């Protein structure tokens, strides 16, 4: 397990930054609107209910207004505050403090809109002693003490180690109070403790001054030490969730601000305002900068995801910054289905207009490549172009969905997800892979619902030959890695970080990691009679030990309940939950992966990195796709059909003024390089040649190669997945120089052009050269040559020219053209 950086993932930052910059550059058109000119349509107050327990408690209140033009404003300071009773709470700025036990109401009014917040105060006369876990631990997070670059590093820093992001409070307590006695905490003179002097900068500190000596954080620390560094009682409440307010904000131009509020809920039912103790991050500082106190300041146009982290919990809110006074007129195009509705809604929100629909030629080529991994044949092209019916695109999608090649394309995708690869440490035999592949073909061809397929895989028992889906557990035998792969492939999330510490940017704790891994702790393996076969079965015994507590982890669904596994096959229990609507991640994951295939980018991108800090670009769309997928009984063909029939899919790759730089919101189709296997198959298709792949019958297509271990130079160059990991990053889709060079100078294209005899057939048929050229255009690019193109090429076929040679050049040029190599 490796964790490249315990800090905020740079890649994620950059991506969102790019997106932000892209939006920033959008050209503005249409009408001018601003918050000032709009009406307040909704007033939000946070939190919805105020509970103050003990004298130490306090609660800030947030007021946010939503205007008719969609913009929001922080109205906290402008609101009119009224407290129904004086003897319960008192107000200090935007904050309420307890006065006496009882209930009352806080009434907030702005512009005639009123919100009432119930307030409850309990034990107002008591003080709560400072708690290590509740009060001291959050300081380390807030002040950054336990980050990976500071004391949270595996070896600590300058001799002092804390658990990364506080995953092990017991260990931290030990290190602070028992290591280097008398130095870290000085019970006699608390102010002279290192824990006080270092962060406050009173003595030299490599990490510099983290907070002021008189800051509340330091006061808590001093108080705790003065109290004798008490250890929390066994039953001390722990934080079960946090809420971040507001959930969404659309800010009108640079300089606009919005305060955030973080409220933590504890296992004993109490709530605390932890805004001052939460750590804040913004995915895009350029558009929404966030201060240590949780104040967001709008910058340039863009979208940002601001996050608050407290205890082991992270929550995020979406922030949009629009240029002040943006003019925008939505084009109000009729949506084809729910996909368009939700994509358009998002576009409207960020004030973009989608591109127009693509031409029939473009559609035919695009849909063929996406659905069957081949280009349309000249006959298919002619037939489609001749079809004048209104629903011909629908008919084409339905036809392609029924093709055998559609199955093969998705089997190849599944083969990547399932890491089908012979050899390796476990010496997977060729036969295992062939049978596993054949099993997948049967599943996809027979349209077995995805959830059933996944259930079969996860709950599989039997021989790797007699029940090939058991190979899932043979390709990876390490139970922790199996758990990671299951999370990554079937739920789209990378939980690897949590093996060693709580996931820094997601909700997963180390406990949850091992509790999830515990589902795979009872896999039994024995050798079959055939030396190449392994029998996978339920051993009925075996546990995973939590490395920190040393206790057996009790199986618990990732983000779900703790099921009863006594006497059951744990994998069956898991499979029944994982591949069901109860698991919120399953349908979303597959919907996202399917979407990714047709747009080259997922709604969550990368598709297997779902986490709180990497939110979907259009959550409503993803939810809708997931809901549909579930409603379709996990028939992925139906979801594919919805996507392909949407206008969103059928949009042109040409961009308009508003969406010119948008990459994430599907305002236009994207130009995508064709995947390695399909590229080779298409080259073979248009040159009428066959390939000979190792361990496949002659004439098999590249997409049919079952084994990740079998490749060719062409496929490797074009980024075919080696299937060594479950990561979606294995398939490389970026164009490279070596690809271009291989096509131009390598033997694939040239040899195939000669072998296939396409030109020879045409010449034998005595067709005029320019007609042959046009036919080649149709064959390779699925369109006729334009008159300009024909004019340009005409001199090649002047009298006395070597027609055959010239045609070869044209053919070669077409096969090397970007129009051929990309799906557009």
């Amino acid at each position, binding site marked *: 397990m490796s964790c490249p950086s315990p800090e905020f993932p740079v890649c994620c930052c950059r991506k969102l930054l790019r997106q932000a910059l892209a939006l920033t550059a959008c050209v503005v058109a249409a009408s001018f609107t601003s918050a000032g000119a709009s009406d307040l349509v909704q007033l939000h107050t946070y939190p919805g209910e105020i509970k103050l327990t003990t004298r130490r408690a306090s609660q800030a209140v947030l007021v946010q207004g939503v205007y008719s033009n969609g913009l929001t404003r922080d109205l906290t300071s402008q609101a009119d505050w009224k407290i129904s009773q004086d003897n319960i709470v008192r107000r200090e700025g935007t904050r309420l403090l307890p006065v006496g036990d009882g209930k009352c109401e806080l009434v907030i009014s702005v512009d005639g809109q009123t919100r009432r917040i119930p307030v409850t105060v309990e034990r107002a006369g008591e003080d709560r002693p400072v708690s290590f876990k509740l009060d001291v631990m959050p300081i380390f997070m807030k002040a950054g003490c336990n980050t990976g670059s500071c004391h949270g590093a595996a070896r600590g820093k300058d001799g002092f180690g804390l658990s990364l992001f506080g995953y092990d409070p017991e260990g931290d307590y030990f290190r602070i109070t028992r290591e280097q006695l008398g130095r870290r905490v000085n019970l006699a003179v608390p102010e002279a403790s290192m824990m006080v002097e270092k962060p406050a900068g009173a003595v030299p500190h490599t990490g510099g001054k983290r907070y002021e000596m008189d800051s509340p954080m330091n006061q808590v620390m001093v108080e705790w030490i003065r109290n004798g560094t008490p250890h929390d009682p066994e039953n001390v409440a722990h934080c079960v969730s946090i809420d971040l307010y507001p959930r969404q904000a659309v800010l009108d131009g640079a300089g606009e601000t919005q305060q955030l509020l973080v409220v933590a809920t504890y296992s004993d039912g109490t709530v605390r305002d932890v805004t001052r103790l939460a750590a804040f991050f913004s995915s895009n500082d350029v558009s929404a900068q966030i201060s240590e106190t949780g104040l967001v300041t709008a910058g340039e146009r863009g979208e940002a995801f601001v996050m608050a982290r407290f205890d082991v919990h992270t929550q995020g809110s979406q922030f949009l910054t629009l240029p002040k006074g943006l003019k925008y007129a939505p084009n109000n195009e009729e949506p084809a289905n729910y996909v368009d509705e939700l994509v358009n809604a998002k576009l409207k929100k960020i004030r973009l207009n989608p591109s127009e629909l693509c031409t029939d030629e473009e559609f035919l080529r695009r849909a063929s490549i996406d659905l069957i991994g081949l280009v349309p044949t000249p006959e298919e092209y002619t037939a489609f172009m001749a079809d004048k019916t209104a629903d011909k695109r629908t008919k084409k999608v339905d036809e392609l969905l029924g093709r055998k090649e559609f199955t093969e394309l998705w089997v190849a995708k599944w083969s990547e997800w399932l890491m089908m690869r012979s050899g390796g440490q476990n010496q997977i035999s060729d036969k295992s892979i062939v049978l596993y592949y054949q099993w997948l073909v049967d599943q996809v061809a027979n349209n077995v619902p995805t959830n059933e397929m996944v259930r079969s895989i996860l709950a599989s028992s039997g021989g790797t030959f007699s029940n090939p889906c058991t190979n899932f557990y043979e390709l990876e035998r390490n139970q922790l890695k199996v758990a990671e792969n299951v999370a990554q492939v079937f739920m789209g999330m990378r939980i690897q970080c949590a093996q060693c510490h709580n996931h820094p940017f997601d909700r997963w704790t180390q406990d949850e990691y091992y509790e999830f891994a515990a589902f795979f702790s009872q896999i039994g393996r024995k050798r079959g009679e055939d030396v190449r076969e392994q029998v996978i079965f339920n051993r009925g015994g075996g546990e995973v030990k939590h490395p920190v507590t040393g206790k057996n982890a009790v199986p618990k669904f990732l983000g779900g309940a703790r099921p009863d596994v006594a006497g059951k096959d744990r994998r069956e229990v898991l499979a029944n939950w994982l591949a069901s609507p109860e698991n919120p991640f399953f349908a979303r994951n597959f919907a996202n992966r399917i979407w990714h295939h047709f747009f080259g980018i997922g709604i969550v991108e990368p598709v297997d990195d779902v986490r709180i800090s990497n939110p979907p670009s259009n959550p409503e769309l993803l939810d809708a796709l997931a809901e549909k997928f579930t409603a379709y009984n996990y028939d992925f063909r139906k979801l594919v059909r919805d996507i392909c029939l949407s206008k969103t899919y059928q949009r042109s790759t040409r961009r308009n003024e508003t969406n010119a730089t948008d990459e994430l919101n599907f305002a236009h189709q994207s130009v995508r390089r064709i995947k390695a296997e399909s590229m080779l198959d298409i080259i073979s298709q248009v040159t009428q040649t066959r390939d000979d792949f190792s361990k496949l*019958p002659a004439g098999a297509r590249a997409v049919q190669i079952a084994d990740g271990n079998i490749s060719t130079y062409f496929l490797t160059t074009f980024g075919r997945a080696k299937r060594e990991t479950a990561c979606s990053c294995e398939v490389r889709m970026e164009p490279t120089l070596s690809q271009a060079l291989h096509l131009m100078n390598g033997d694939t294209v040239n040899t195939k052009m000669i072998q296939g005899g396409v030109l020879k057939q045409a010449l034998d048929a005595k067709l005029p050269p320019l007609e042959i050229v046009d036919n080649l255009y149709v064959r390779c690019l699925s369109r006729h040559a334009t008159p300009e193109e024909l004019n340009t090429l005409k001199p090649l076929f002047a009298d006395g020219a070597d027609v055959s040679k010239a045609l070869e050049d044209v053919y070669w040029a077409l096969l090397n053209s970007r129009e051929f190599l990309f799906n557009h």
Partner: protein
Amino acid sequence: MFRTGVQEMSPCRFLAAAGGCRNCGSACPVWQAVCQAEIMEICLLRRGGGMLWNLRTRLRVGLALVIGLLSCCVSAQASQPRFQHLSPLSAQRGTEVDVILYGDQLADAEEVLLYDSGMKVVAFEPLDAGDEKKQGKRVKVRFQIAADCPLGAQRMRIRTRTGLSDLKNFHVGALPVSAEKEPNTQFETPQEIALNTSVEGRIDREDVDYYVIEAKKGQRLTAEIFGQRFGRSTGPSYFDPYLAILNADRFELATNDDTPLVWNDAVVSIIAPADGKYFVQVRDASYNGDGQAYYVLHVGEFPRPLAVLPAGGRPGEKLKVTFLGDISGPIEREVTLPSQISEENFGLDVSDDRGIAPSQHPFRVVDLENVMEQEPNNQRNLATAGPLPGAFNGVIGEKGDIDFFRFAAKKDESVTVEVFARRIRSGLDPVISVHQASDGKQLGSDDDSRGVDCAVKLKVPADGEYVVAIRDHLHRGDPTYTYRVEVTRVQPQLHAEPVEFARYTQQQIIIPQGAGSGIVANIQRREFGGAVNFRSPELPPGVRLECPEGWRADGTASVVFYADENAPLSGRYSAITAFVDDPKQPNLKVEGELRQDVLMIRANNNDRVWQERMHRLPIVVTEKAPFKCWIETPPVPVVRGGSFNLIVHCEKAAGWDEEIRMQLLQNPPGVSSNGSAKIPKGATQGVIAINASDKAAERESQIAVRCTARHAGGDYELCTAFAPIRVEERYLSFEFAQGAVEQGKETPYLVKVTKRKDFEGEANVQLLGLPANATAEPLKLKKDMTELLFTIKAAANTPVGMSQNVICRVEVPENGSTIVHSLGSGRLRVDKPAPPPKASTPAPNASNPPPAAVAKAAAPPKPLSRLEQLRLQQQERAGKGE
């Protein structure tokens, strides 16, 4: 014969038994007069004197043999024949067929040794005899196959005058055979074959073969392939056939990859749904295939059940059996079993009016009463009752099925409950548990201790009833999941197998005339212990075997086969019996076979994919080797922790002089020997260094040496006669004082000697393991000395530090030789010289010389212990006023 331990495939025309070399005709009078007389003498002596045979006599004999010159020419006849292929590979029984055998070094081939019954060779002719380039590569034979020849593999080797080839399989079927005709790789261009015929073909790389047949509606159509069972492979790649029957629309009607009955081969059956053409597709399961992927495909209406119930019966018994799994339904037959229990595999054929199935069902012939399961028996209290001993037979017919059987046993009986399922080629992966019938308490369970099958050994806790539960490991069930549970009182069992001297190389018993061929047998004893010997009533003429007594009680034993000088060139598969031959247990009668599983297909990691079990081992007498070797009997024992140089003499034929590699056939327990010793070119003797460990067993062992040399393109191996080697406790033990010496100085080094056994004369003692540039003169040790005092001189550049492993090499004289002891160990520290005395120190007063000087003057110094030395040093310092 005892002495002339010459072994292995000799092309050399040494001395023929009839008294002369075949090639040159020389009579070699010296050899006959001297050697053979001596040999007779040795044999007589040995028989009379047994293990007490006088060492000196043997030594004398050995030396006498050296005198016998091998004045004979050497032939360049090929050795180490190889058998690579047969063509055709199969034939119909009841016919005669000409077959070409392909290989190498076959020019002097003499016969085909057929292992199985039902076939004989009626013509045998090496081809291309005159052609120098081609000769030795082909042999033409004609097989006459009896009409009742067993179906399946016919295993065979080729015997030449100088060796024995590897094993190859030929296939005998019941249907006429035709050959595959390419191109048949496309569905559109299949090869037409007639129903009820066989076709012999080969799958090349990524190849698919299609055959088409006509069938009528309702006709039973079965295809069975014999592919992997040929035992062919190319490196780690081997053929794993896959079969499918397709209709004319290309729909698969039946497919099969593996079926337990036919191992990795395949069987498919359909009832033809309509009149028309049906296509049989043959390929490798993972599109492998290479030059060795040969197959015979049987296509016909024959029955093809997949299991038989019960799968065993008593010898000579007539019983009803049901064949299960045929597509037309169960087939009942009455069969009569052979009256003799044999180790050879026995199988049942199944036939009906439409043909006979191409391969047999394995069937157990054991003297146990059959009990059939009585459904319902899937609860403990519904268990089917049977006797002890007895055989319970049944089927795990459906998912989740579990069958219970019940038997009564007496307290303290030892009972074995053994399941035969995969071993009778059922698809069941059995799991068994044994319980007390009264309360269900589990007494034992097993899944995989017999390969896929399982067994439980039970010590009966009390008189009462016991229940056996059997189910599938994955809780599967199928109408063909038959099993047989044999419940017996524990009986001693015995079998042995030759161990492999080199990885993947199985030792063959190929004995050059007048020499030996040795194997080491791994003896598997179950439920007994004691000495085991070997015998065989059917060795080739002039061959005898010897397993010296010293080895018999061990887990592995040396067995050497000797051929007489005049043993005729011949070969035979001989049953060799291992039997208890223990003077301490005269009444224990246990016998078993010496068998060999011939490895035909090996996958990665030494996985044995296909092997042929040989219950009889081929034993072949070949022409003499161009050399003979014998051991010079060690005149002295080797002591624990000591070493000894074993001398091996050889005699080379005139004109032949190659290096001879030597290795002990088997090291005595706790003894190691040089595995790469040689008799170099031009030499007639070599040395094998032997070391005994500190814990080597004190005993006398008979050792033999395997001698190998290159000749005529092959390796010739022979095994010498046995010679005794005795391991004894050390004669002496040494105790070392700890020593320390300064660089550039010397120190006395005391060794205390404790004697265990007397010896005559003086032993040389040498101190070894000293640090660099430190020396100590060797000393002489007489039997009554109790101390040795070495003087260790350290040079100025002897490195500072501790030497942990100072030892003494002691050569104790005995019997004209020496016994090398390695005794130790001690420690020696080398120090830096002490710093020179301070300048202020007054010079020693001449009238008051230091005490050391006095001690020195007082002649031979008493060796001081380390502690005493230190005390002395301290006194010296004190005296100097430091």
